[in-house]
């Protein structure tokens, strides 16, 4: 484990290096998918269903085809001829690319229209007339599980997709039976959407002469997509070496650009059939209404413990609404992701969690919305319940947490649900947050205000995340192991190029990966070019999501650098006519022990690797590493939120929000803080504003930015950040990953603050999003509203 240090000479670890990416973005020279224009390129637009469940009796294409510039209308039966009308999901379920005769959710793809430009393609879509026979709609996952319920899927026995459970049920039930105190709440974590500012899209270019497909697309996982495309279209002769997937600049991902969507497949098919490049770009409504959703977990949460505030046991039972097919993006062994991190930061003696997946007439999904595999759901539930328990036994929420934290000396710690936490110091992080916000004074202020009838609340969330998927012994997606990968080539002049199996969507990889290599090799970061996203050139990797880039590919960068340094040492020994064991390393240079002025820089060594290498040694200076992490990483933090509630309107004002994060060693503090700002805002969003709901007919509420409300600069609180640093003992540079911590940790702090303000009225839980209306209704129910 390297000690973090500010090495300004090479801009290595700990340096707030300004971003390399900015140069093109601030000039409007980014290269996003919709910026691509190829000669002869056609445009694909999609006809979508107005019904959530209906039989398609006829698709009338005559008017569309009579529109000048419209070339073709593609429907399910067209694709069936090539056997690509269906595609497998990552959870080995089946998703329609285009339906043969039935649609299963509102806005589902019905047909594709191909035209010479995007306006004409839209005209063509408007001119396609579809005859539907509406069918009964199933929107409630609980009703879907009732005996005799209408089946969403004809090809399945029921609406129950799978049951998954984890932990020791018998011991847990016993501990609950013997417990002095048991608390129970129903917590719903609503359906939300990542809504990255750039929607999804692609340009597919089929080269019939060379039987080669190039697919530029908004994907967080280019290699995985290449393999999936090869698996779907292998029977058509499209094997993996003939497919090149290129992810250009991506305008935000947050998990929404991991899956393969039907539009991509239609575009590929259309390019193969027409021989022309085909572009498909979603509009915002298509993005919100049809792309993968996140969350939608109905959790019945119970905690057991003692009157003195000791927590002993946890039991969570969850109904997961998956829509019409299970298209979640989870590791194949974990259909409910890493939901079994739900014991969180606390030392439970027993725990048992179970999840049941259910089909409904809603769009498929189950992606992460800026969190590692269902960790946000687990964290929200445990952090809410810790408060419920504290208030039940009459203990301060901070005190209860301090009492039940896994203690620093218990790490590495094996949780009741089997995870081995790598490192942590939870009391220090919470104490720091309490000091920053002035916790004890706030409690005094709250007590005084309560006497005056003013509602003020203080909420804590002391979360533990689990990221960095993942070790090959337990992790794979469709059988593919989730290695990190990095290839570094040092050029003769001592400059370098490094390529990775990840893909930045704003995280700043071009800047930060270079810093890791700079730290390890002493080559200035400015002299290291970082490339990602092109499957023809980058080493195989499973992409960027679940905060895995730093834990796995960041580790690869360090290990590949160390391989290069090992070879550089041999070359230096040759040049210095010294024994290898007599050489010492300082940043960027080997020198002879005891003679510090006798040395060779990495640049001199690189030049020699191509001009004067030792006889018998391979020339050149490069290395590849595929990193199989020994464990996951466990970032953590403590957040405290202070709210004031307007008794006239129910409006919640976040007065202060302090976030102390511990993500291990920080590569670039400026970028880490930027990630936390963004993560907190994407925690605030579902806590206060965002939700997608459906009426009884399966009509979506929230299919545009007037109904689905993203926070603006006006609503977003001013975040106050603090940090502690507990390195990961198993990661080569001690880093843990940070992109998602804040999104996972923030909602519970906000909710806990609001419930804390209303606890004395008897309020135990309010489901997010906490809108003014919802709070006003709670106040009204308890006779606590107040006219101005």
């Amino acid at each position, binding site marked *: 484990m390297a000690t973090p240090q500010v090495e300004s000479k090479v801009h290595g670890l700990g340096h707030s290096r300004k971003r390399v990416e900015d140069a093109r973005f601030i000039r409007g020279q*980014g290269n996003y998918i919709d910026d691509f224009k190829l000669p002869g390129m056609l445009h694909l637009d999609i006809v979508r269903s107005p019904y959530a469940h209906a039989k398609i009796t006829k698709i009338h294409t005559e008017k569309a085809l009579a529109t000048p510039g419209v070339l073709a209308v593609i429907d399910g039966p067209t694709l069936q001829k090539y056997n690509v009308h269906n595609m497998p999901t990552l959870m080995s379920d089946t998703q329609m690319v285009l339906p043969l005769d039935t649609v299963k959710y509102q806005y589902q793809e019905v047909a594709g229209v191909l035209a010479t430009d995007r306006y004409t393609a839209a005209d063509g879509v408007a001119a396609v007339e579809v005859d539907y026979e509406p069918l009964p709609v199933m929107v409630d996952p609980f009703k879907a599980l009732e005996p005799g319920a209408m089946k969403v899927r004809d090809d399945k026995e029921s609406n129950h997709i799978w049951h998954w459970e984890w932990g020791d049920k018998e011991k847990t039930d016993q501990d609950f039976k013997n417990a002095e105190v048991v608390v129970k709440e129903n917590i719903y974590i609503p359906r939300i959407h990542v809504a990255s500012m750039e929607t999804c899209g692609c340009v597919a270019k089929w080269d019939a002469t060379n039987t080669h497909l190039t697919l530029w697309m908004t994907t967080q996982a280019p290699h995985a997509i290449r393999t999936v495309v090869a698996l779907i279209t292998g029977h058509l002769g499209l094997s993996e070496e003939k497919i090149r997937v290129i992810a250009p600049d991506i305008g935000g991902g947050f998990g929404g650009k991991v899956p393969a969507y039907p539009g991509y497949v239609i575009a590929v098919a259309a390019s193969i059939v027409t021989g022309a490049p085909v572009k498909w770009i979603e509009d*915002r409504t298509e993005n919100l209404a049809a792309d993968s959703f996140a969350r939608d977990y109905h959790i019945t949460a119970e905690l057991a413990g003692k009157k003195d505030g000791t927590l002993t046991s946890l039991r969570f039972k969850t109904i997961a609404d998956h829509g019409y097919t299970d298209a979640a993006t989870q590791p194949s062994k974990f259909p409910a992701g890493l939901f079994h991190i739900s014991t969180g930061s606390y030392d439970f003696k027993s725990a048992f969690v179970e999840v049941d997946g259910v089909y409904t007439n809603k769009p498929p999904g189950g992606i992460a919305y800026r969190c590692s595999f269902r960790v946000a759901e687990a964290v929200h539930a445990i952090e809410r319940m810790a408060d419920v328990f504290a208030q039940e036994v009459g203990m301060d929420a901070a005190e209860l947490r301090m009492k039940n934290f896994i203690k620093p000396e218990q790490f590495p710690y094996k949780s009741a649900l089997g995870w081995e936490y790598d490192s942590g110091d939870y009391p220090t992080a919470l104490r720091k947050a309490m000091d920053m916000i002035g916790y004890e004074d706030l409690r005094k202020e709250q007590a005084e205000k309560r006497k005056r009838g003013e509602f003020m609340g203080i909420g804590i969330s002391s979360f533990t995340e689990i990221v960095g998927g993942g070790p090959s012994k337990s992790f794979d997606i469709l059988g593919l192991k989730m290695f990190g990968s990095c290839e570094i080539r040092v050029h003769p002049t001592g400059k370098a190029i490094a390529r990775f199996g990840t893909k930045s969507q704003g995280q700043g990889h071009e800047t930060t990966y270079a810093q890791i290599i700079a730290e390890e090799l002493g080559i200035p970061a400015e002299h290291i070019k970082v490339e990602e996203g092109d499957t023809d050139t980058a080493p195989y990797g499973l992409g960027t999501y679940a905060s895995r880039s730093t834990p796995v590919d960041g580790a690869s960068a360090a290990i590949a650098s160390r391989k290069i340094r090992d070879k550089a040492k041999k070359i230096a020994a040759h040049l210095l006519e010294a024994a290898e064991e007599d050489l010492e390393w300082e940043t960027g240079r080997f020198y002879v022990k005891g003679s510090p002025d006798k040395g060779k820089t990495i640049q001199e060594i690189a030049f020699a690797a191509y001009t004067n290498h030792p006889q018998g040694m391979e020339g050149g200076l490069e290395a590849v590493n595929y990193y199989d992490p020994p464990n996951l990483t466990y970032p953590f933090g403590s957040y405290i939120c202070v709210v004031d509630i307007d008794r006239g309107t129910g409006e919640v004002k976040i007065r202060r929000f302090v976030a102390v994060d511990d993500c291990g060693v920080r590569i670039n503090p400026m970028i880490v803080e930027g990630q936390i*700002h963004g993560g907190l805002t994407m925690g605030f969003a579902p806590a206060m504003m965002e939700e997608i709901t459906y009426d009884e007919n399966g009509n979506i509420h929230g299919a545009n930015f007037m109904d689905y409300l993203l926070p603006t600069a006006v609503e977003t609180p001013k975040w106050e950040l603090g940090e502690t640093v507990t390195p990961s003992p198993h990661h080569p540079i001690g880093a843990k990953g940070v992109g998602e911590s804040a999104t996972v940790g923030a909602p519970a702090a906000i909710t806990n603050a609001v419930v804390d303000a209303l606890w004395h009225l008897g309020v135990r839980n309010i489901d997010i999003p906490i809108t003014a209306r919802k709070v006003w209704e709670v106040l009204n129910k308890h006779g606590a509203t107040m006219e101005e």
Partner: protein
Amino acid sequence: MSTHHIHVTINGKAHEADVESRLLLVHLLRENLNMTGTHIGCDTTSCGACTVQLNGKPVKSCTVLAVQADGMEVKTVEGLATNGKLHAIQEGFHEKHGLQCGFCTPGMMMTSSALLEQNPHPTEDEIRHAISGNLCRCTGYMNIVKAVQYAADKMAEGA
């Protein structure tokens, strides 16, 4: 569909085009003129990714017809720098880490640079209200506010 002959000055350069009545200004820029720095993020005038300046005022170019820009001056992100020298707002976004994925950035800069023309010394609240029609999903806005403040200071020094 009728077409119209329009004259538009974009970033100081005169352009003429025959356009359909329904062509949006953002598509005139992106599709017809290949100026792809201006982005599209929604269809409801909500997100501001497509913001350009029309006769100095920030407008969402997805909700302006190209024909409405006839005879007017359009400024886009490509026109912010002069003679290769970055505008203070571009410098500010880089210096203060005011961007991550970069998709909202051109629109943010067009809105905030127009603000600074009207109000050279805005308060934090004034900045936050001015950019409230521009959505950013990555940054949480804090560093965008700092970027605008940086630009305000820089422009005051230069004035």
